[in-house]
């Protein structure tokens, strides 16, 4: 895909979305406004809030014939076991208007203390995930500056404490939940010449200290540090059109712009509001987004530092319907460059030959469809989701991750719920050519075919 194609595709998608919306049909929650603004003349000076998510998960995957495991078969962020309990999120934040008489300025701060890719990979006990100030002085052009969620895919932009599943879709996990190349990992030349990446590791190796997660930076967490201009407009007949344009470091929740280049983001949505307010507002929302950036990566398997700048472009379109008792979401996401595959580099590690390609300059795409049914007059909700992700598209080592997630939620009250998920996973190398068709350890399927199902139980408490 050409350099600007992703962005153009996003813009065209957005235009189509708005055109379709304007033509007469289409609210779900407006995350731009919910996260970036406060209710005028009705916000607290400092509202303390947060949530805790505790979970148990068990992965039923089998190791490869040599007993080796790859990351999709183990539980993160440690990637050293297949079952266990975790406090995967524990966040506390403050938001409001510091000077409540002036509704034109509001702020948002959130701290993560759970055990996940934000804290584990950064080696921190706690990590700031949000710290932003919004200036609402210019009609139609609110300005939000600081660290916050970037305008993008619904699955990433939505508030995680109201996310209806335990794990993200494979496409969102791989393409949007950014892993930054390990800058400090100096692999001895030739130590892993086949992959330029670590693993697979056996259980004994993992228990002896081998690590499948060697990232040294926190995951991007769908966030960036920068400035965003945005607003939402009531265009009549309960329709709301929103936009956001942002420029950021392109370094996730880290406060630096190490490559000297900036990421740019664009988001457009049109929503028909049905009623309600907050994260569970009802409506039909069409949205499109795109982002452009670049990353530095040393992908050669030697002990010499030779960083190369690779484009990292993402784009997507989607629609979300929410009107109790039903909910439905469909999203398509495409990516060009810096396709994450490996445990320490956006690299290629499912086979034994680097000649088969590398994620740094590859393309990938995927989509998902999900729905929920709030069983009337009960506290139960049933959820189902299918997602598919094709990575290293059109390359001989192209692979596809398909996943079904069946879920049930029990809402003790609007702030506390328990989520049960069963994931049925089918991961395979599907190019139809070697190495996908190769035998034994020469094929990526040597590692991928053992990926099995996964079950999880998660308790969420919001305060």
């Amino acid at each position, binding site marked *: 895909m050409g350099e600007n194609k992703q962005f153009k595709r996003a813009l065209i998608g957005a235009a189509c979305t708005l055109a379709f919306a304007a033509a007469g049909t289409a609210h779900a929650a407006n995350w731009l406004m919910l996260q970036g603004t406060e209710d*005028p003349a009705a916000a607290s000076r400092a509202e303390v809030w947060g949530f805790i998510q505790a979970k148990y998960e068990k992965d039923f995957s089998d190791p490869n014939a040599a007993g080796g495991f790859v990351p999709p078969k183990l539980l993160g962020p440690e990637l050293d076991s297949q079952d266990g309990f975790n406090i995967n999120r524990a966040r506390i934040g403050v938001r409001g208007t510091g000077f409540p008489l002036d509704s034109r300025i509001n702020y948002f701060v959130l701290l993560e203390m759970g055990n996940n890719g934000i804290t584990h990979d950064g080696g921190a006990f706690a990590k700031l995930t949000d710290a932003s100030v919004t200036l609402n002085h210019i009609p139609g052009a609110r300005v939000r500056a600081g660290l916050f969620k970037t305008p993008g895919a619904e699955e990433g932009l939505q508030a995680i404490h109201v996310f209806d599943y335990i794990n993200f879709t494979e496409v969102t996990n791989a393409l949007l939940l950014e892993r930054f190349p390990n800058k400090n990992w100096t692999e001895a030349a030739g130590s892993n010449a086949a992959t330029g990446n670590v693993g697979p590791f056996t259980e004994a190796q993992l228990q002896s200290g081998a690590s499948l997660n060697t990232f040294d930076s926190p995951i991007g967490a769908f966030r960036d540090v920068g400035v965003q201009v945005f607003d939402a407009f009531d265009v009549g007949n309960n329709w709301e059109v929103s936009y956001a344009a942002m420029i950021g470091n392109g370094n996730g929740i880290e406060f630096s712009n190490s490559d000297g280049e900036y990421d740019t983001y664009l988001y457009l949505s049109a929503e028909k509001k049905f009623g309600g307010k907050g994260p569970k507002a009802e409506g039909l929302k069409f949205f499109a987004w795109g982002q452009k950036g670049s990353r530095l990566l040393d992908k050669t398997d030697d002990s010499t530092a030779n960083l190369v700048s690779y484009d990292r472009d993402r784009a997507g379109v989607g629609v979300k319907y929410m009107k109790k008792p039903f909910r439905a979401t469909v999203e398509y996401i495409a990516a060009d460059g810096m396709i994450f595959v490996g445990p320490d580099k956006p690299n290629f590690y499912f086979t034994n030959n680097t000649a088969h390609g590398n994620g740094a300059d590859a393309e990938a795409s995927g989509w998902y469809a999900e729905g929920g049914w709030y069983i009337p007059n009960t506290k139960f909700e049933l959820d189902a989701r299918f997602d598919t992700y094709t990575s290293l598209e059109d390359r001989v080592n192209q692979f596809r991750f398909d996943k079904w997630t069946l879920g049930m939620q029990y809402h003790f009250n609007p702030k506390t719920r328990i989520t049960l998920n069963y994931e049925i996973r089918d991961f395979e190398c599907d190019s139809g050519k070697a190495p996908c068709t190769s035998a034994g350890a020469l094929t990526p399927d040597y590692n991928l075919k053992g990926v099995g199902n996964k079950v999880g139980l998660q308790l969420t408490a919001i305060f």
Partner: protein
Amino acid sequence: MLKFFRSTLLAISSLLFISVATPALSADHSLADYKYVLHISDMDPSKQELILNNARNLLDAYPPGDVEVEIVAYGPGLRLMFAENVNAQRIDSLSQSGVRFTACGNTLKGMAKLLGEEPKLNAAATVVPGGIVRIGELVKQGYIYVKP
């Protein structure tokens, strides 16, 4: 005969007086059976919704004309009557249903000093010199005082 004309004239004059003076009477000499003054001076945003809910519930609980409601705001609670307040539509609706919204002039002056300009109020709001004084007057007139 003259007595009849005098009585008729007196009756008509009284009716005219009553009809002209009705707006003032509704505030000070209401004929409603139940009269409530609802007081908001809190910063807490949830109190804003609560007090509007109270007003709506009172209107719904009695036959039309049997209840009179006045919301008096001062201190941080005056934000409820800011023109930009997120509940402005509900305030308009309640106002049209007869609920009176009264804003404290002293608070307004103080806010103007802090902000450098006087905050714009909802058109439904009537400014009185002092919110606390207004509450006292209404209680003296027999209003039931409620602070949610």
